[in-house]
């Protein structure tokens, strides 16, 4: 039986964590003060979308479009200026403690302790999620083997390559088996081979019935992995839907052309 509770900050109903809606974002805004603190920068400007349970959802856009800020709001790193965001049935303004129990984030930067080994970093974050040592080691072994880092697990991460650090970061994000996983540009800066390997790995996550929010500016990544994508530009959602449907709707051959048709720019050009 689904339970609902009233959201204090908007008129939308918040579903309990077992609802089929994992994330619901309504008219979300985040304005940062500019350098002279007079003008404000509209990083996110009225974004609305929802993500269903088990869906692999992409936020596609140029650098600076507002993808990471949206993720930061959903994970509690920054608070929204206006609007509502509900994650796993919990309001980001009032229920951060509960949200942090069910999510995990793979940030844009690898974000690991360089004086710790790979396995120690995994154990550190597993412990913060109160996992048992046995649980952590079993899960870590599986993930390390899948991503080909098992033999390097006892090396200090300062000796890892950029690609290895990103893969480790992904493993850390998955160690607590989160209900909702946020991946912020997980393959940026990787060589094509490593990227392909991560895509294969992320493809296996798709089959685990886990909700995944992926931000990317790689068209192929969004097309290959996402059930639906929201194309973001200047902090606004300019198109949303399954990649194939968007391509058909705009009568083009890929998402890059969808973006170009709407904005007149290429995604990689930035804003």
């Amino acid at each position: 039986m689904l339970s609902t509770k009233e959201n204090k900050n908007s008129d939308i109903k918040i579903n309990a964590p077992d609802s089929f809606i994992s994330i619901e974002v309504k008219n979300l805004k985040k304005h940062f003060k500019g350098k002279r603190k007079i003008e404000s920068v509209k990083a996110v400007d009225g974004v609305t979308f929802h993500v269903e349970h088990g869906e692999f959802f992409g936020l596609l856009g140029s650098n600076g479009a507002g993808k990471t800020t949206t993720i930061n709001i959903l994970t509690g790193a920054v608070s929204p200026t206006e609007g509502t965001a509900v994650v796993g049935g919990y309001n980001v303004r009032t229920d951060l403690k509960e949200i942090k129990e069910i999510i995990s984030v793979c940030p844009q930067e690898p974000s690991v302790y360089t004086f710790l080994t790979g396995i120690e970093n995994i154990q550190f974050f597993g412990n913060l999620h109160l996992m048992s040592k046995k649980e952590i080691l079993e899960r870590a072994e599986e993930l390390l083997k899948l991503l080909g880092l098992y033999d390097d697990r006892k090396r200090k991460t300062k000796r890892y390559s950029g690609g290895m650090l990103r893969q480790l970061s992904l493993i850390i994000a998955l160690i607590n088996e989160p209900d909702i996983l946020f991946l912020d540009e997980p393959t940026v800066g990787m060589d094509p081979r490593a990227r392909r390997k991560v895509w294969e790995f992320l493809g296996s996550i798709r089959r685990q019935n886990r909700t995944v929010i992926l931000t990317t500016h790689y068209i192929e990544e969004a097309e290959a992995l996402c059930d639906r994508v929201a194309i973001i530009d200047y902090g606004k959602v300019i198109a949303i839907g399954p990649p194939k449907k968007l391509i058909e709707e705009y009568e083009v051959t890929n998402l890059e052309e969808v973006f170009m048709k709407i904005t007149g720019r290429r995604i990689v050009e930035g804003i």
Partner: protein
Amino acid sequence: MKTKRVLTIVKMEMLRLLRDPVVLVFTVLLVPVLILIFGLTMGSNYGWSSEYTIFEIMLPGFLAYACLMTIYDVAASVAGERASGIQQRVNTTPLTSVEYILSQLISYTIKPLIQMFLGFGVALLVGYRPLATAAGYLLVIVFLVLLTFSSVGFGLITAQFAKSAGAAGGLAFIFIVPQQLFATFIPPAFIGADSFKWIFPSFYATEGLGYIFAGVSLTDSYIWMLLGILLAISAVIYIVGILVYEKNKNK
């Protein structure tokens, strides 16, 4: 509050102390080396006093100086974690502010103990024989832990003004050098800075340690006054540091 999370952070801090070469050198090894050098060269030199050697006068200041290096450690690690995104990543885990602060309290109680045992151990090796009692040594630990907490506060404040670990490490010396010059192993009167010394937390720790090592009775109210003032200053600086950190941790 979950003990497991607190101990996880404490373990990580201890590993940082042992494995980060810069932290190891600055916060653990530097002062024992200074004590060794000064102990060997000035252990029998009665320069300023007929009663105590230069080394005996300087030793309390060396131990206080070791605690001051915590400013560097905290500033560099907090700024580094923020710049690398680790801080933000940790903030997305269920770790609470109370658990984080408690883990810092434990870590920065253990670190000055390590510094004291190493520094004091080297001092004993080079012939230093203080007149302190067992209770006196316990009070020495309390003085050093309190000074360390003021240093943690200064470190947290410093970290907010730096964009990288390197910059924070450099800025930390704004808080370290004046305390070092005016109120640690260099006697303030020696450089004509006697009237400034009371500003610095390190003065109260150095002075307290000096009295205890000289065998002054622990019933002497001056020692407890020094401890009380150090406690008050350290509490204020630490709380300000935590508030500044909490306010800016997601920036």
